[in-house]
């Protein structure tokens, strides 16, 4: 089994290095095929490992030492257990699909080979992240995915906005990574090891304050990667990257790493329910907060990005309330339908020549039937309609909130579910229904390549049927995660809740259809709604990016300039130069002594004589005083 582990892990790396070899040469399909093929290999290996793990075994290997000094010992160790194998499956499935899809999507791009190098490197980092058996290894993957995300967001590096977004994402993640690093330090100095098994076995012996701090710092790391408030702004900006990247990184895998971390560290968070409650509350807040921003946005990809953010909030609610398996399950289901949604959006973008405003589209269902069906079904799944994946995972989270008696959280999530349904179908309605507004802009849309649609179909299938795996999945992961079942015990309440939620969501969908399916004009900012305060607030993302810009970025730049021009040059360096100049000046001034006038020299000589004599007198007096 170790062989499969290594294949699953290193196949993407090989693909990445192979593609990187061709990084400087013109496009060759070879890189795309090889990278996709290797990814598929990795997927197959993961699947084999899955069956193995389902048999009740786990695989744990230690490849080699990484760092060892003092008492610190960090190996490159990998573990395939019930949790990581689920993640591996999610990662490999989505990335295989995205790889194949990208062969078509990046067809006309000059950086074709480079794209595959980055993309496969990302998958490798992600695999390291999920498979590592210690926190340091997790951190390698953690930073690795950050790097690849940087490279892929800024893939079109000639675009100012893309590179800016790439840097923003990297730096924001770094802020969170610092928190995670501190959490790792605390673990090391309190436990003495970073191996999961050792840490989780010993964590209970620590004082609760320390565990709380560890939990908080690790969660700060998770907040950055999963774009939780207040570190969320990078995710929407990250949509500057190519759409397959958004599908793979910013919807399905990387952003869920934070959830994975909390799930993985469940023995820690189990001990600190207060932090868990905070995580859940923050998650609920982010769910609503992000959904509200998605309501008014006019950028197709950003709407889906906010939706991702909102769903990540759901996952954190589940994880924070201790329902780790539910969080992981929603993570999995979400990965499928959100990736599908993004890939569909990619098709639309291609068709519309990179136009992103859904108000400029409309009526596309006629030309893009396949994409239309896929995106609609993905949206249905996202909204949580029975029997699609979202129903099983998302409604479960609502139930968790209800069963755990956190009714505020429950209400917020319920409201968000309605909003989710509304904005998803607002998008679908605007893109695929109504008048063909794109004709105003002289665009001739076309459906994507066949094989791209075929490549997307596994995701479609999974988005539809993932819910049926629920029990199998549950049996699998309870080996590692707390096995609490979340059932509303009162039969009547359960049915009222379930049906009520469904009806509420349907109502939201219908409302969205009614409002937007017959839209016939492109808004130009003159309507009454667009000038209302609420709309402006949401449109400007609560003014948070602007706030960051004004409060952090600009002052930091200004402060840096002051530090350089005022402090470093005018104070620190000037002090040094002043000392040097003082010495020079002293020389310059005393130069008059050496004016060559013998008479003056004689006077100085006498002066010196007197000084020496005075010293002699003083020392003699002093000497006598001491000896007496």
């Amino acid at each position, binding site marked *: 089994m170790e062989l499969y582990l290594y294949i699953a892990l290193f196949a993407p790396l090989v693909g990445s290095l192979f593609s990187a070899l061709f990084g400087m040469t013109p496009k060759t399909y070879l890189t795309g095929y090889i990278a996709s093929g290797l990814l598929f290999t990795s997927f197959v290996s993961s699947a084999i490992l899955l069956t193995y793990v389902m048999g009740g075994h786990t695989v744990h290997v230690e490849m080699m030492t990484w760092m060892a000094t003092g008492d610190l010992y960090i190996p490159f160790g990998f573990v395939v257990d019930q949790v990581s194998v689920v993640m591996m499956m999610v990662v490999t499935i989505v990335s295989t699909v995205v790889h194949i899809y990208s062969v078509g999507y990046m067809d006309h791009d000059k950086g074709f080979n480079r794209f595959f190098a980055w993309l496969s490197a990302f998958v490798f980092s992600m695999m390291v992240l999920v498979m590592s058996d210690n926190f340091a290894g997790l951190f390698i993957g953690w930073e690795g995915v950050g790097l690849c995300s940087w490279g892929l967001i800024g893939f079109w590096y000639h675009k100012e906005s893309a590179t800016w977004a790439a840097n923003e994402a990297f730096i924001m993640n770094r802020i969170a990574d610092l928190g995670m690093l501190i959490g790792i330090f605390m673990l090391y100095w309190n436990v003495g090891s970073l191996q999961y098994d050792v840490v989780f076995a010993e964590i209970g012996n620590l004082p609760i304050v320390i565990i709380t701090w560890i939990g908080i710092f690790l969660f700060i790391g998770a907040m950055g990667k999963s774009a939780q408030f207040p570190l969320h702004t990078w995710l929407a900006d990250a949509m500057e990257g190519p759409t397959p990247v958004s599908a793979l990184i910013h919807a399905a895998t990387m952003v869920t790493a934070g959830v994975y971390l909390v799930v993985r560290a469940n023995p820690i968070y189990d001990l600190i329910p207060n932090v868990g409650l905070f995580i859940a509350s923050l998650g609920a807040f982010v769910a609503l907060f992000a959904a509200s921003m998605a309501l008014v946005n006019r950028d197709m990809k950003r709407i889906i990005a906010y939706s991702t953010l909102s769903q990540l909030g759901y996952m954190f609610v589940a994880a924070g309330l201790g329902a780790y398996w539910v969080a992981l399950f929603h993570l999995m289901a979400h990965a499928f339908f959100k990736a599908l949604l993004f890939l569909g959006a990619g098709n639309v973008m291609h068709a519309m020549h990179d136009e992103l405003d859904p108000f400029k589209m409309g009526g596309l269902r006629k030309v893009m039937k396949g994409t239309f069906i896929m995106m609609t079904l993905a949206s249905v799944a996202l909204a949580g309609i029975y029997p699609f994946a979202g129903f099983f995972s998302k409604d479960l989270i609502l139930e968790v909130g209800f069963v755990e008696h956190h009714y505020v959280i429950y209400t917020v999530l319920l409201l968000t579910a309605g909003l989710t349904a509304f904005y998803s179908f607002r998008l679908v309605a605007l893109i695929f229904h109504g008048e063909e507004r794109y004709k105003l802009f002289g665009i001739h849309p076309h459906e994507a390549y066949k094989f791209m649609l075929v490549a997307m179909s596994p995701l479609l299938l999974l988005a539809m049927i993932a819910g049926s795996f629920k029990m199998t999945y549950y049996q699998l992961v309870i080996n590692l995660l707390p096995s609490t079942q979340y059932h509303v015990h009162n039969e009547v309440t359960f049915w009222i809740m379930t049906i009520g939620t469904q009806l509420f969501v349907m109502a939201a969908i219908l409302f969205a259809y009614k409002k937007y399916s017959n839209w016939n004009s492109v808004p130009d900012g003159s309507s009454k709604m667009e000038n209302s305060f609420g709309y402006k607030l949401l449109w400007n993302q609560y003014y948070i990016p602007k706030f960051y810009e004004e409060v952090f970025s600009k002052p930091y730049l200004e402060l840096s300039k002051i530090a350089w021009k005022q402090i470093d040059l005018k104070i620190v360096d000037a002090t040094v130069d002043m000392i040097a100049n003082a010495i020079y000046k002293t020389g310059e001034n005393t*130069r008059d002594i*050496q*004016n*060559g*006038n*013998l*008479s003056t020299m*004689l*006077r100085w000589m*006498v002066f010196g004589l007197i000084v020496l004599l005075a010293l002699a007198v003083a020392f003699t007096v002093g000497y006598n005083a001491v000896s007496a």
Partner: protein
Amino acid sequence: MEITLTHYLVLSSVLFAIGLIGVMRRKNLLMLFFATEILLNATNVAFAAISHYMGDLSGQMFAFFIIAIAASEVAIGLGLLIVWYKRTGKIDLDQMNSMRG
């Protein structure tokens, strides 16, 4: 009212101070030489007095050699002075400033 060594030393100091004032005050090189002679003589007095009161001949020896040095100094010094005078026609100290730094 006995004359002690201190009397001589004070006298010598006073003469030395007069010599110093001369050295600092004079600008004419020849007159400056006079002042240096005074300095040398002041020390000679001190040496002779110490020699006498300590009952040691070394002081007189030193004074003797100082006189020898003074003599040679005058010879060389005047020679140089003549050279300088031939070149510039003046023996004013303020004009000898080629060592200006």
